[in-house]
């Protein structure tokens, strides 16, 4: 009797084995991308996560966009634009003949509708804050007005937007997903399901969505830019573990690893020439840092904060993550305007750190708490930081918690030290003020704000506002210089410990290729789908 069950198992396995279907490799003009987490929504007003960010960019378009692989702003659905002399009014001339996927032509009214939709509280858009600088936006949001006065439809192909104050980053907000244009009739028809039945103007349109399994996009034959997209179909497989995704890529079933190379196999891949050549390396607009709550004792003393900055061995931490990053000494990442290549920051010098602490009255160190997100590799990085702090006498209790809990605690200002990994700052758009206003400004140093350091310097606030007013062409360099000064000054106050800037490593199969930089596009994260093409 005991032998029989062995037979049963063997039979089952053999049968199952015979029934294995030929595993589908991507068809001729199809590109397959994997993600671990689900694609939540494709509504441009709402979508704000790693998976859907670039997919939305391929289904929808905005007035402005960036040249592929770069951070250079170019007009997109707008044919041209003009800025008034006082920098407060932008007039956009739209391209003609651009069609939504439902064949209707795009008009200026559609842009007004789309922006008002984002501002409308009922939409629950995370991006509403980007457009509050438009005249009349506040009244509209509060329900005091039926429309946003500052968005004017001059004629069907001309849109005029007036701002309360000049904002040098405004054009970036006209390129960000939240400003992408949507057709009113489709939104009204689909209601809350628009995110799963997206209709836009983009190079791709939605072909199929099997919840929890895959999203399939197909080429939009009427796309206004000829030659794009460069492939007929893109399949996004979700729920795929990064280690397994890599195995599938090595077997030829998958073309792009949406979540990158799994850390566990990173070194093997990079050391093996067979696989190394399939990896594209680029920089991101990213900084990983530890925030120091400057309103909490003993961190109110700048000497203590500077001591912490000198205690961390950043090279060692970078080594722990297999050299996938470069150590950071300042707040802005290398690709960002305003980055100061000459600034050397605080050196790694535990002895000097201890002296500073003693000067501040903490010769015996002190106890504190370090918060971190619990997804790998953040607990490891946090433990490395913990050890470095212990070496100068700062005994940090480590709390690795679910992301939502850390965000909540830090948002309430109750977290003395927070390692930002997994919640770190990748710029929403490639402008230095995106590293200032949401996370280091006085306006964000409030309960619920993301300025977890509660850093507020009124003088710098003034300077940043002034820098943002430099909108005229030709003033870019001056503005970059101003921000360089601002961030240098911030580093003197040391509300953060910048740890590293992560680089981007995108691995793809040898079936696919494209222009330089599209696999590490700093804006179309992780990959510029419009530009990917099958080359074999």
């Amino acid at each position: 009797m005991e032998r029989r069950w062995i037979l049963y198992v063997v039979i089952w396995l053999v049968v199952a084995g015979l029934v294995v279907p030929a595993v589908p490799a991507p068809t001729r003009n199809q590109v397959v991308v994997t993600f671990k987490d689900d694609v939540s929504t494709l509504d441009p007003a709402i979508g704000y996560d790693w998976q859907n960010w670039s997919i939305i960019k391929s289904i929808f378009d905005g007035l402005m966009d960036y040249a592929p692989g770069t951070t250079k702003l170019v007009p997109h659905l707008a044919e041209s634009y003009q800025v008034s002399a006082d920098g407060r009014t932008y007039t956009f001339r739209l391209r003609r003949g651009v069609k939504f996927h439902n064949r209707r032509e795009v008009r200026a009214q559609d842009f007004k509708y789309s922006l008002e939709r984002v501002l409308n509280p009922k939409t629950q858009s995370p991006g509403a804050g980007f457009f509050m600088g438009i005249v009349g936006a506040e009244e509209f949001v509060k329900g005091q007005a039926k429309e946003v006065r500052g968005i004017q439809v001059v004629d069907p192909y001309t849109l005029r937007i007036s701002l309360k104050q000049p904002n040098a980053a405004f054009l970036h907000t006209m390129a960000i997903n939240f400003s992408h244009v949507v057709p009113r009739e489709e939104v009204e028809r689909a209601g809350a399901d628009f995110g799963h039945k997206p209709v836009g103007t983009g190079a791709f349109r939605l072909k199929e969505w099997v919840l929890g399994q895959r999203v399939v996009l197909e080429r939009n034959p009427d796309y206004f830019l000829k030659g794009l997209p460069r492939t007929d179909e893109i399949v996004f497989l979700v729920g795929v573990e990064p280690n397994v995704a890599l195995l599938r890529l090595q077997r030829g079933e998958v073309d792009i690893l949406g979540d990158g190379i799994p850390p566990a196999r990173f070194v093997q891949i990079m050391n093996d020439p067979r696989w190394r050549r399939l990896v594209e390396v680029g920089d991101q607009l990213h900084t990983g840092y530890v925030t120091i709550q400057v309103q909490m004792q003993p961190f109110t003393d700048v000497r203590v904060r500077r001591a912490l900055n000198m205690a961390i061995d950043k090279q060692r931490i970078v080594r722990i993550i297999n050299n996938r990053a470069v150590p950071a000494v300042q707040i802005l990442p290398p690709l960002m305007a305003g980055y100061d290549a000459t600034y050397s920051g605080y050196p790694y010098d535990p002895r000097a750190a201890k002296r500073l602490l003693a000067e501040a009255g903490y010769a015996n160190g002190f106890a504190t708490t370090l918060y971190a997100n619990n997804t790998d590799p953040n607990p490891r990085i946090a433990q490395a930081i913990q050890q470095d702090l212990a070496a100068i006498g700062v005994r940090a209790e480590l709390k690795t918690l679910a992301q939502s809990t850390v965000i909540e605690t830090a948002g309430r200002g109750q977290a003395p030290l927070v390692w930002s990994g997994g919640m770190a700052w990748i710029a929403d758009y490639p402008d230095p003020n995106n590293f200032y206003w949401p996370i280091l400004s006085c306006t964000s140093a409030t309960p619920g704000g993301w300025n977890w350091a509660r850093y507020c310097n009124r003088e710098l606030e003034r300077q940043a506002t002034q820098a943002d007013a430099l909108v005229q062409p030709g003033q870019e360099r001056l503005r970059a210089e101003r921000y360089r000064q601002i961030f240098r000054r911030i580093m003197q106050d040391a509300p953060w410990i910048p740890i590293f800037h992560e680089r981007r490593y995108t691995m793809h199969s040898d079936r696919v290729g494209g222009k330089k930089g599209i696999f590490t596009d700093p804006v179309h994260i992780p990959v510029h789908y419009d530009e990917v093409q099958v080359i074999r």
Partner: protein
Amino acid sequence: MSDTMSVQVHVAPRTPVDRPMATLTGRSPWSRVWRDPTAMAGLLVVAAVAITALLAPVLAPYDPSAQHPDGLTADGRPLPPSGRFLLGTDLLGRDLLSRMVYGARVSLMVGVVANGAAVGIGALLGIVAGYAGGWAGALFMRLTDLMMAFPALVLAIALAAILRPSLWIVALVIGLVNWVWVARVVYSQTLSLARKEFVEAARALGAAASRILFRHLLPHLVPTLLVWGTLGISTTVLFEASLSFLGVGVRPPTPSWGGIINESQSYFLDAPWLVAFPGAAILLTSLSFNLVGDALRDALDPRRGERP
């Protein structure tokens, strides 16, 4: 013609009188354990683990939290077992052997104490519910359904944020989650046992409910409880890792066997020692407890150990 299927034989209750062998040969139950080599092996391992946990500071070659700069390769990979680091290093360059030695504390506490408590509570409630049957029994069982459906993960996250994380909270959550399984199985068995003839007989003789429960029913349930008490050590140790991951239990850098496995799992193909050694430790420990438990049970009830 007697048909075996319908034979109604009175099953004798388990009373002290049923220990002919031990008293006959004059040996105490313990000596039976002594003579059994596998049981001794189990006892040795259990003792070894307990001693390791107690004497961790003495036995561990390094500080378990020390991240050695030379504990990782130049590109940040952990080292396999070597002369310097006998079991290799982990992802932060810490000595695995030292971490495992200290980790024995957490794992023993969780696997044996927490799990044991859960089994005890589950057994108690299960027996009472199964014996009472009817109304009260149904109520108990709906309670277990409720506890099972309750999202333990969400509870763990909430506790992690509100309370000071500690081993006791882990033990609490484990207890809350595990007792349900035991209760359910014990309930089902008790339902069946309680209606057997020997119980009816005992009741007819006027035995009190508690006597029936503990003298007559419990011995039949002990094997099942033993399964949960021993196999449960493995699953509980691994479960503790998930809880600590959510922030409920031991805080980093405190090591635990399950925790080491948890943080190194995705590196399994490249650094298998990080999963293999703690996994083997968990296996050996729970297996050894099982050997000791089996031997004890056999020793205390010779009828059980008979060869069919």
